[in-house]
């Protein structure tokens, strides 16, 4: 079991944003998380990436408990994520954004930087090459040298995925990656996600509203509503689950 959440609870004042949720993500799968707006999906993401501390419950990566670790510790244990509201480093270049995923785990330290040592130069070259590689994967090689804030919206999302990939994660957590993308872009997204799983051997945990993306992509899907897990299973099972249909339809007027 690569990622496991046990009895996770997150309370904001009187509101239970995540209510006693258990889940498991297996190595090598694409695991989907869906649910109506306000179901607690992003909060769950924030819990597993350490952005927020759970009120109760525990989280395990590779059997190791990581429940109250700060986000950078969790990132170093193999989870990397993107954000629903894009959080790129806007003033930095496309390639710099990607490289940042690698620097903290490289041998580029303060002293090597100041001394411009051989290690620094070697690491710098290695990082740069890998960054170009990743940009190739997410299809942004033609944007090298651009400031992140000047990219079109869809490409900003792809860049965020690239940046997350750069940390060499075991699990890539994607928060609505297709939001705001056109047909062509989301096709490219699907292709990229499959590539990442198949060729790079990275497990994917994805929140998505776009049903087409979810159904064609995921091996298993978990459904949340009002902070609770209401269903889990293969896409075909989910599609026919009455609870899920009610959760979605009941919300629409």
């Amino acid at each position: 079991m690569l990622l496991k959440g046990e009895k996770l609870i997150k309370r904001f004042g009187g509101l239970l944003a995540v209510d006693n949720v258990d889940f498991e993500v297996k190595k090598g799968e694409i695991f989907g998380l869906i649910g109506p707006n306000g179901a607690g999906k992003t909060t769950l993401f924030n819990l597993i990436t350490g952005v927020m501390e759970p009120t109760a419950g525990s989280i395990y990566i590779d059997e190791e408990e990581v429940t109250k670790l700060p986000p950078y510790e969790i990132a170093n244990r193999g989870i990397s994520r993107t954000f629903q509201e894009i959080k790129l480093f806007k003033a930095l270049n496309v390639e710099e954004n990607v490289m940042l995923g690698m620097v903290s785990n490289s041998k580029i330290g303060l002293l090597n930087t100041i001394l411009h040592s051989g290690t620094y130069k070697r690491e710098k070259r290695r990082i740069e090459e890998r960054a170009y590689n990743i940009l190739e994967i997410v299809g942004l090689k033609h944007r090298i040298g651009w400031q992140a804030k000047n990219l079109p919206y869809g490409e900003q999302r792809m860049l965020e995925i690239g940046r997350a990939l750069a940390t060499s994660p075991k699990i890539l957590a994607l928060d609505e990656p297709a939001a705001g993308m056109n047909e062509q872009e989301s096709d490219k997204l699907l292709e990229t996600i499959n590539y990442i799983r198949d060729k790079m051997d990275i497990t994917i945990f994805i929140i998505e509203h776009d049903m087409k993306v979810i159904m064609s992509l995921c091996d298993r899907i978990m459904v949340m509503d009002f902070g609770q897990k209401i269903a889990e299973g293969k896409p075909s099972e989910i599609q026919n689950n009455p609870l899920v249909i009610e959760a979605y339809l009941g919300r629409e007027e």
Partner: protein
Amino acid sequence: MEKRGFYLYKLIALILLVLGILFPLLVSDQYVIRIINMTFIYIILSMSLNLITGVTGQFHLGHAAFYGVGAYIAALLSVKLHVSFLFAFIAGGIGAGFIGLLIGLPTIRLRDIYLTVTTLGFGEIVRLILLNWVSVTRGPMGIPGIPYPEFFGIKIMSQIDFYYLIFFVLILSVVVLFRITYSRYGDILRAIRENELAAKTLGINTTIYKVTAFVIGALFAGLAGALFAYFSAYISPDSFTFAESINILAMVVIGGLGSMPGAILGAVILALAPEAFRFLAEYRMVVVGLLMLGVILWRHSGLIGEQTAIKFMNMKIGGK
């Protein structure tokens, strides 16, 4: 992939270096050299504050305190304990860096204006300690009679001697601070400024980086202070006021927040302007005030903005 060729900034740095070495041979006016010496000290201060406030984005209003701590440590060591120049100079830097760590660790979790006002308060506390701890600092009497620096048998006495000493330290500071700023390490600092949360989720321990930037900035300000103490041979708390912190900040902002070449230019302008307008007597600060306002209205992100500086650092000549 990468264009071959020679970095433009290296060429310019080389030209400036040669000019810097030859300068005292071309200009013999002691007054001019003194002003240039002070300007060099301000460049170190402004670059060090730029690392903290510009690159890392921690709005810091108490930089004169680090400057003062460095100056006082060096002065007290040399006057009271007769410690040699090199030791006192380095101690000034390390002492200021240590104070930076002391203040940085607990306050770094404060955000935005709360951090700002804390650094302001800290700066005032340091000045008031210098002013009131008479038994150690001699309080408002200041410390006169700081001896000439002496190392490896060289005695620094004249303005020109000081010029080369300060110029050497300046080059050292420029190399270190430019390397930090325009490197992957600098990218991390900028990333923390742009979006701390995102940086954390990439596995970056942002607290360590922020504190480190704070300490490095404090350290260089301390070195500048130690140089100032030896250079002026007399120091008093009057030189390390809130107004001085603001003055250094103005250099950084006018030059371009986050831009090291900007910090240098800003320091040059604001250190020279009051001297250039000295003939105006009581009207001079009116002009300096207007100049400050004018520059910032003309170029909102400073004379050499951060992006301009980054482009400049990547510019190459020749080759393809």
